[in-house]
């Protein structure tokens, strides 16, 4: 076993474990913490693949900004321990079926191809910052700008909704 492979398995275990813990934890803050573990482990995996920029942005945006907001809101509402109710019937049977189907599909894909699995655990130069920025700001500049416009609209919408109504 080479060092990158060991690191890959450690990070992968962390990510999967964090994701499971996210679902099974009773307290919202613990779930949020598990999600942070998943984010950081994913960033580690990106770093292992040589995508330094993506790894850093993953932590800054997801691990930092978004999850801080989650934690902030949970703290602000002072949400307590959740009571787990019975599973809904709809989620029970078809959900399990779908989960098995998805797992089977992924397993089959992994079993068929040999390169991709290897690639995930091997260091390489996937995307340099320069390539990435060329792609975003040159090749896909219109979709990119459209997305930012969409986010702007969402922000404006949130502000309008959150505004106190002016008294007549």
């Amino acid at each position, binding site marked *: 076993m080479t060092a990158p492979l060991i690191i890959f398995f450690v990070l992968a275990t962390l990510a999967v474990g964090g994701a499971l813990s996210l679902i099974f934890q009773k307290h919202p803050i613990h779930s949020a913490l598990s999600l942070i573990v998943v984010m950081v482990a994913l960033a580690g995996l990106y770093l292992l693949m040589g995508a*330094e920029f993506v790894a850093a942005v993953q*932590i800054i945006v997801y691990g*930092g*900004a978004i999850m801080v907001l989650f934690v*902030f809101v949970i703290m602000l509402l002072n949400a307590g321990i959740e009571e787990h109710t019975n599973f809904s019937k709809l989620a029970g049977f078809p959900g399990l079926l779908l989960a098995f189907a998805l797992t089977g599909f992924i397993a089959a894909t992994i079993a068929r191809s040999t390169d991709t699995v290897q690639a995930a655990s091997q260091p390489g130069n996937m995307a340099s910052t320069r390539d990435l920025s060329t792609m975003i700001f040159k090749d896909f500049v219109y979709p990119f700008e459209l997305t930012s416009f969409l986010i702007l609209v969402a922000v404006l919408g949130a502000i309008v909704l959150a505004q106190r109504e002016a008294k007549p």
Partner: protein
Amino acid sequence: MNAFLYANAWLIITVVKVALLLFIVLTVNAYLTWFERKVVAHIQSRWGPHRVGPHGLLQPMADGLKFLFKEDPTPAGVDRFVYFLAPLVALALALTSIAIIPFGPDPLPWKILGQTIYLGILPPNVNIGILALFAITALGVYGVALAGWSSNSKYPLLGGLRSSAQMISYELALTLSVVGVLLIAGSFNLTEIINDQTSRYGILGWNIFPQFLGFLCFFTAAVAETNRVPFDLPEAESELVAGFHTEYASFKFAMFFIAEYTSMITVSCLCAILFFGGWLSPFPASWTWTYYLPTALLLPAGLWVIWDGLHYETIFGKVILPGIGAVLCILAIALVIFPGVNNYIQAPFWLLSKIFVFLFVYVWMRGTLPRLRYDQLMAFGWKMLLPVSIANVVITSFAILRWGAIK
């Protein structure tokens, strides 16, 4: 044995470097508390610590021992896991961020176990330097926020809430204010950012001149990120007892303390590197006499400490202070005798001097500025700092488009 050492040379050297850096940073931290208390005391016309050791020099050691031996009660109703995790997260992240900082341009002149040794944990060709730092800072808020939440008490909760809101707001300005520097240097690599500031005229090549606005925004936002006066709302003692660490005692409290001081050091390093030329000398390269500045600084300092020690009241001081002075004088003389060593320490000397200046500014601000009101803090972050740093990015981009990068 030897073969094993050579085969794992890289790993062993990194571990040794980490241990050494941790030792240095923690010692500097301890004496930073002494320095802060002394400077603030003198600003307020007091003496500051002067009972434990000569000039209170052993005070940090006494404080450390006190932290270790104090009772460490866990309040009732805390979320135990998170309560213990929070100080760990705060300290670990603060210490990790120091690993990114390069402390000098040249590797050590000799190789150890066949490896080239650079000053700093990471080799100088790591491309995401500054981004990695921001990533670590971005996670740093969890230490404070979780400590506030898990304590199961009102004041810490308010402190934690304030700190998360504050950090989200100021992180934007912090990141945006650096973009100007990145545009000029064209790299995320801290070593390259410093080398890009090289100029024939020394100080005139530094980023502080084209990026003055950026520096103001950066320093303000960074002070807010480190929860220091005048932005220390999360621990405002007049309103919140002690804010997020009210319920922490003993060494868990010390961990928050060390984390705060370590992030002060990191921010000072960053200010020096991004805007003040890092390890570059402020004088033109042709002025070779500036190479004797470290000597010229160490020798009078050493002589003064000896003189002061001989006149000190206690016997202990009469021994320790002249001892320190003698070491400083010997160092100064050694630098004159060995020009190779003198040349080598020039870069770290300048970097450390700049870091020291920024640490002094931190303490200075603590001694002079009043705390902001919370709504003022938020309004300042969003309505002032953020637009200014965005304007800085826009202006810098246009200037680079119009006239090209300055060099």
